[in-house]
Each structure stands twice: as structure tokens, then as C-alpha cells.
């Protein structure tokens, strides 16, 4: 059961987890990314590449489902304007095996960071700036290529 969503609406964490739990697996892992204040951020704006983003996330979810025995994979990414405390992204993986659920969750968020066409713009009062990518994100995504879990 693959559930991929890109939406301007707030992310319903409880609902998404309940759907994953209902898939019948004994183990459900999740990761939530939240807008941080980070020294005065007043707004975070998420831009994306419509159509292509959906396909990139769908491909990632399918790759996870092929790599681990998962009964549910959920990726929900918010776009548009957010404020500190809002959820930006939610990844959920459900499996009969806890290690599979946790590893798939790590895989999905690591790879999403480098492979899905999203861009963040931070506003601090009157100043807006595009967030620079981090080398550590490339390294985190890379570890899923070189190792076999």
C-alpha cells in the first residue's frame, strides 16, 4: 500500500499513522520533519516541480517496498507557506519486522532530501533567502547506494 501526497494542507500525522497501522503489520516507524525557528524564521516556503515531484516520491516509495518487506509506505510532503512548528514532511513504513520499518523510514527521508525536486525559502522578517543544500544530505543519501542495509 503506497500512499504519496504533495499538498498545501497541514499534514494529518495521526490519520496517516492510523492508515499504516491498519495495514496489519506489527511494526510501524515514522519520521516527521518540522519547521524550526532557527534564529528568527517567520515563514518557510516550499516550492516544487509539479508532476515530477510526485513521480520522484512514488519511485522512492516503490524502491523501498522492493528493498524491504513493507505492508505500507507513506510519504506526505507539504508545499507552500508554513510557519515554525508546522510539519514539512512525514514518512511512514510498516512491516512485520521492526528493523525493516525503521531502515525503510531512514532510506526514504535520506533519499527524498536529494532526489525530490523541492526547494525551501526562509523568511526572517523582511529578508527571504533560499536554503542552501547540505553536504551531509548527499552523504546520507549515498549510504543507501553503497551498502545493502
Amino acid at each position, binding site marked *: 500500500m503506497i500512499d504519496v501526497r504533495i499538498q498545501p494542507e497541514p499534514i494529518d500525522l495521526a490519520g496517516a499513522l492510523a492508515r499504516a497501522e491498519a495495514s496489519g503489520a506489527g511494526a510501524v516507524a515514522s519520521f516527521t*520533519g518540522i519547521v524550526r525557528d532557527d534564529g528568527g524564521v517567520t515563514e518557510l516556503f*516550499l*516550492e*516544487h*516541480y509539479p*508532476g*515530477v515531484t510526485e*513521480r520522484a516520491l512514488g519511485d522512492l516509495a516503490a524502491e523501498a517496498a522492493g528493498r524491504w518487506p513493507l505492508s505500507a509506505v507513506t510519504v506526505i*510532503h507539504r508545499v507552500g507557506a508554513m510557519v515554525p512548528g508546522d510539519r*514539512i*514532511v512525514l514518512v511512514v513504513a510498516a512491516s512485520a519486522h521492526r528493523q525493516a520499518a525503521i531502515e525503510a523510514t531512514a532510506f526514504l*527521508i535520506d533519499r*527524498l*532530501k*536529494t*532526489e*525530490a*525536486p*523541492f*526547494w*525551501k*525559502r526562509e523568511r526572517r522578517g523582511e529578508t527571504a533567502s*533560499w*536554503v*542552501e*543544500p547540505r553536504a551531509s*544530505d548527499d552523504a546520507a543519501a549515498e549510504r543507501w547506494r553503497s551498502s545493502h542495509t
Partner: protein
Amino acid sequence: MRVLYFAWVRERIGRDEDRLDPPPAVTTVAGLLDWMGRDDPVRAGAFADRTRLRAAADGRFVPLDAPIAGVSEIAIFPPVTGG
């Protein structure tokens, strides 16, 4: 050919996309960027530092030296920062 812009590339050029018909001599993404900047200082400025640019051809990430033959949509953008 549609050329889409995202994030600061879009802001700097001042629009979402251009529709272009590059000559046959333009064969790669990098060549397209050179050609697009030739008579357009704003685009030339946005495309000046190639280390800060990434590209997609028909929705697939490609390196800047990728061929553009048969591609109908090129996207130019900074490295992604989602999640």
C-alpha cells in the same frame, strides 16, 4: 522546447519558463544555457555559476552535459532542499 525555472533561478530570471527553439548546433543542457545567455544578460547572469545549477530533462535529473535531442521539457534549478 519548454525551459522551466525553479527557486532562485526563477526569481532571478523573473518568470516560470521560456519557450525556445534552439538551433541544431545546441546539443547539451550546458550548450543550451550558453545559447540562452548569449543575447540575454539576465539569463546569462542566472546561469553564470554552473556549479550552483542542476537540470532535469523531461522530468528526470540529468547532468549538465546531458544531450537534449528529443527532449521537450528542460528544467533548470538549484540543488534540491526538500524534506
